[in-house]
């Protein structure tokens, strides 16, 4: 096996050998490697296939910008993870990784045929081709495309790992631990500011930490040595927290940032167990220093995507940091000075290399050094083509014309096994723009720079466009002093020697004799968009960068265009003949690098996913086999199946028992609001449609609450407990909103009212007993209470004691039966329930759930807000005009009840429906029509509630129908998939129209 690890570095521990599997084969690396560096050390460049043409692709970079080396980690159904960048993944013992987007394997990929038919699949191919016939998309095109494309596989079972969230507050957050970040953090922390420094790498130091060129020095030391000292210094600062392996994912307003800390991803499997895998930091910082550095640009020329073609600076890092050379015969292709550092480093390690430079000449110290070492430099030359299928083996260069627009002279063919490209540097302005910052464009080296730093955010270092060390340090120090309003002198006398010069010759699309249509000049490596695609989009009329991006998919891959966006913009600007600065950029959206769902969700999984509210009777319901229904956050018994009953049978039995003898319902979840104060009656007058002033103490009244637009909002029974004390009940789901609404009016519209509101929903448990035998059961529970209709009539309230515990008993009914609601402090709720059940045994007291409750009230035509109403129903629409006071001067929503729209006669109105076949049960939500032949069919309304009533032995339904009030007796049709159901409009009350049962 070849070994490209050619020298020792302090970052690779050669005493700790690590074995790992890649595409099923076992390899070795060392502790300190990334998966990418270990693969390169084994001579592996080919790591994947491109998305569209399935071209072989190699590792191109050494960081977050990597578009090619993305892999699938692990193979377990619950732990596998797609789209992991090999350049960021730290190697650990037992790591299993495989390449993505290739079948059957990376070396022989059947989709590679797309490469040869590529003239047939231009930009927008999918949009243009797979449009017709329309029905083919879902069944034919999409499954086929997904089969051969797709990036990786998602896990199919729940993630077993633990994730965590942490909230922190700092005076200063510094993003990025390179030279400028370290200086900023030190200055802040030394001036008594609580500071957090985050960096996504394992160690601090950025790209300076492995710098070893003697032409770049600080205080007479190699810049890397100087920086190591600084790092030692800042580690001692008590005000400074340093978080490595931590990357900022999002920068939101008000300096609220999200960071992902990787805690175990670098550990071997057995050490990961029972540890928190990743932690999401939610950071609030008074001030933020952005020092995220810059990313080297590729160059756009024909066949610039072969394995073995990397960014020049990445070759340098693999060499000086990991001790790995990317080849043995390397060509560096550049338009600026930085590739010369790489060249000199390679040369020192004995790696043969030469330089192709777009510039006509250059003369910095660095270039003189390269020349003196005898490194061959082709100035004013351009790479026009590369060769080699699975790896580059040679390339062609040509001379550039004077203006750089064409090539001249003869081709020179050079052999190589690796090509480094450097198209200059792109400042990482993601954080700046995510925070709302705008950008400026600097023409001389074609970069977007942060504009007008706000008072609480600043960019320093190369993300601010300062590329040479002298500039980086001086400017950072000055800016930080000003930004933090401090006067730090630590770097006053720092002596910096930097022989690099910021002199580039920028050509976005390099010239070639071959027509563009026949070249493959890649811009977005992962999504396979080429210069030709961009030009085609422009030709087809696209102008906005946002449109070109979506049409060509440039910058839309998992790397989010970190390497490609600038070139796309540049080519658009050149082609359209406009200045690049005027084009703007696409939007930089979070996350900067992909986040796992686990990190975002944190601990809120499984039973912590959502709050669950249970009544104090809950355990009894569980023991008695209840099926539960979620109502808001509440778990409510839905029905209690007995002896293998299905839902229908259980509900029929429960409903019948409640009307024949007695039923009991856990009504604890109904919202309860305690209302007190000398203006309580006036307040109720204003919030309900009916009048409350004359309600006697000890009496109850049903109320309907509207929104200001006149639409029904909530309903419930309110009891007058004493002169200035009411207890209001609301629907279960509406409780919180009703309280908020009432508070809103009290605080903002009627602050003069003396009223106090307290939610007591959780304070009381409620058992509701109904049916002809309910009075007898109550009598057993409260033998001293006079239950006669004279003393305790319907809609009244009494207090009594149950074994010395106070109970509030309301005689109110939601079923139409004689009915009592017993309220007790919640801690006694379970006992109360059991005592009720015990007392009711001889009367077949049957516990019933929400489904039976709904059925029983539907028999009586009582509405359920939210089921029979949907925010567009007025009281009149519900045929409830009786509850709207004509006398009251005002109440919430009153004026809206006679707007031109609400008085329309043809509004949808609540009616009853009876099916011609009494056994036929309608589907809730079914549409209602009068004529199925006319087209389009005129929809008159829909079914809101539908049940089979065991007490009436027929199907009943409530519905909203246009002009329904006037349609009683009329025949209508419910068209279903296979048949039309005939129905007759009826009254909304199906049972006991005279309300005899209330006092039976």
């Amino acid at each position: 096996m070849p070994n490209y690890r050619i020298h020792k570095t302090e970052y690779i521990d050669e005493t700790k050998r690590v074995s790992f599997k890649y595409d099923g084969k076992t390899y070795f690396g060392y502790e300190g490697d990334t998966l990418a560096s270990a693969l390169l050390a084994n001579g592996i460049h080919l790591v994947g296939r491109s998305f569209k043409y399935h071209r072989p692709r190699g590792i191109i970079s050494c960081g977050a910008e990597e578009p090619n080396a993305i892999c699938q980690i692990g193979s377990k159904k619950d732990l596998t993870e797609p789209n992991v960048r090999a350049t960021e993944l730290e190697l650990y013992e037992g790591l299993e990784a495989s390449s993505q987007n290739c079948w059957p394997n990376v070396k022989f990929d059947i989709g590679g045929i797309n490469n040869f038919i590529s003239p047939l699949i231009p930009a927008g191919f999918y949009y243009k081709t797979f449009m017709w016939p329309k029905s083919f998309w879902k069944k034919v095109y999409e499954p086929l495309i997904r089969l051969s494309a797709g990036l990786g596989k998602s896990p199919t079972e729940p993630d077993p790992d633990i994730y965590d969230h942490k909230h922190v507050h700092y005076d200063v957050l510094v993003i990025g631990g390179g030279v400028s970040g370290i200086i900023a953090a030190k200055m802040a922390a030394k001036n008594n500011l609580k500071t957090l420094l985050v960096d996504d790498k394992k160690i601090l130091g950025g790209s300076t930490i492995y710098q070893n060129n003697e032409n770049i020095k600080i205080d007479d030391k190699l810049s890397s040595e100087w920086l190591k000292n600084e790092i030692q210094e800042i580690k001692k600062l008590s005000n400074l927290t340093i978080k490595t392996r931590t990357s900022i994912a999002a920068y939101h307003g008000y300096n609220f940032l999200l960071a992902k800390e990787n805690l175990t991803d670098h550990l071997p499997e057995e050490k990961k167990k029972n540890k928190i895998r990743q932690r999401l930091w939610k950071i609030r910082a008074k001030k933020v220093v952005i020092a995220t550095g810059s990313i080297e640009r590729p160059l756009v020329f024909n066949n610039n995507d072969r394995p073995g073609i990397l960014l020049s600076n990445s070759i340098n890092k693999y060499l000086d940091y990991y001790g790995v050379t990317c080849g043995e015969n390397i060509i560096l292709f550049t338009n600026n000075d930085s590739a010369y550092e790489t060249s000199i480093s390679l040369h020192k390690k004995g790696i043969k290399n030469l330089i192709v430079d777009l510039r006509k000449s250059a003369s910095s110290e660095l270039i003189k050094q390269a020349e003196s070492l005898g490194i061959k430099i082709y100035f004013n030359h351009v790479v026009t083509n590369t060769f080699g299928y699975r790896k580059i083996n040679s390339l062609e260069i040509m001379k550039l014309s004077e203006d750089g627009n064409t090539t001249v002279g003869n081709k020179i063919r050079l052999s190589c096994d690796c090509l480094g490209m450097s198209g200059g540097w792109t400042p990482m302005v993601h954080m700046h723009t995510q925070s709302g910052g705008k950008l400026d464009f600097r023409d001389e080296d074609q970069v977007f720079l942060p504009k007008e730093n706000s008072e609480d955010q600043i960019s320093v270092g190369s993300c601010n466009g300062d590329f040479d060390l002298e500039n980086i340090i001086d400017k950072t120090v000055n800016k930080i002093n000003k930004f933090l309003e401090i006067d730090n002198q630590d770097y006053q006398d720092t002596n910096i020697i930097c022989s690099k010069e910021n002199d580039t010759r920028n050509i976005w699309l390099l010239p070639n004799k071959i027509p563009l249509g026949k070249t493959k000049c890649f811009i977005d490596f992962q999504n396979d968009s080429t210069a030709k695609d961009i030009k085609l989009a422009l030709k087809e009329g696209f102008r906005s960068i946002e449109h070109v991006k979506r049409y060509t998919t440039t910058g839309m891959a998992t790397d989010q265009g970190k390497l490609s966006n600038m070139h796309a913009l540049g080519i658009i600007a050149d082609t359209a003949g406009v200045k690049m600065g005027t084009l703007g950029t696409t939007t930089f959206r979070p996350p900067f690098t992909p986040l796992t769902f686990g990190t975002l969700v944190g601990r809120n999984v499984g039973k912590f996913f959502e709050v669950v509210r249970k009544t104090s009777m809950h355990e009894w319901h569980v023991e008695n086999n209840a099926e539960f229904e979620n109502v808001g956050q509440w778990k409510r018994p839905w029905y209690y199946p007995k002896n293998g009953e299905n839902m229908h049978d259980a509900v029929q039995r429960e409903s019948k028992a409640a009307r024949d003898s007695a039923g009991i319902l856990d009504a604890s979840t109904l919202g309860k609001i305690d209302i007190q104060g000398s203006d309580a009656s006036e307040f109720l007058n204003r919030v309900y449609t009916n009048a409350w002033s004359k309600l006697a103490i000890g009496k109850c009244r049903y109320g309907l609450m509207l929104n200001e637009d006149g639409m029904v909002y909530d309903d419930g029974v309110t009891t007058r407990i004493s002169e200035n004390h009411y207890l209001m009940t609301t629907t279960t789901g509406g409780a919180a909103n009703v309280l908020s609404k009432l508070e809103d009016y009290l605080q903002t519209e009627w602050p003069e009212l003396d009223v106090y509101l307290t939610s007591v929903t959780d304070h009381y448990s409620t058992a509701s007993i109904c049916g002809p035998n309910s009075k007898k059961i109550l009598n057993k529970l409260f033998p001293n209470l006079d239950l006669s209709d004279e003393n305790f009539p319907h809609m009244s309230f009494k207090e009594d004691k149950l074994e010395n515990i106070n109970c509030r008993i309301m005689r109110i009914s939601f079923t139409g039966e004689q009915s009592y609601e017993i309220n007790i402090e919640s801690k006694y709720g379970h006992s109360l329930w059991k005592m009720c059940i015990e007392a009711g045994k001889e009367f077949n007291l049957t516990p019933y759930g929400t489904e039976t409750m709904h059925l029983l009230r539907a028999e009586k035509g009582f509405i359920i807000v939210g089921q029979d109403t949907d925010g567009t129903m007025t009281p009149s629409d519900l045929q409830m005009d009786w509850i709207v006071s004509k006398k009251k001067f005002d109440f919430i929503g009153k004026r809206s009840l006679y707007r031109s729209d609400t008085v329309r006669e043809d509004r949808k109105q609540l009616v009853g429906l009876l099916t011609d076949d009494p056994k036929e049960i309608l589907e809730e939500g079914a549409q209602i029509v009068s004529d199925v032949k006319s087209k389009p069919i005129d929809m008159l309304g829909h079914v809101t509630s539908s049940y089979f009533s065991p007490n009436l032995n027929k199907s009943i339904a409530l519905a909203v129908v246009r002009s329904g009030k006037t349609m009683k007796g009329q025949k209508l049709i419910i068209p279903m998939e296979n048949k039309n159901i005939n129905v007759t409009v009826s009254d909304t009350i199906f049972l006991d129209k005279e309300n005899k049962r209330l006092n039976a």
Partner: protein
Amino acid sequence: MFLINCPFCGERDQSEFSSGGEAHIVRPKQPTELSDDEWAEYLFMRKNIKGIQFERWNHVHGCRKWFNVVRDTSNDKILSVYKMGEKPPVNYK
């Protein structure tokens, strides 16, 4: 994510608050006197300004108090916070 300076509790995270739309829309004292158009103006019409906007906020997961906020919607900066019933700061008119 805003930091909102509740006039009763101090600076808190936006997640503790709920927004209640435009501020200083007073419920008419005599709704019955209003024409449909006038009532609709109160009921439905809201400004949606790019720039300085007066808003109602409720510290719903805190003291549950309503209060007013002056916010520049173009950059989300909260310029002023004041209690219900207090006059809006004149310098932002």
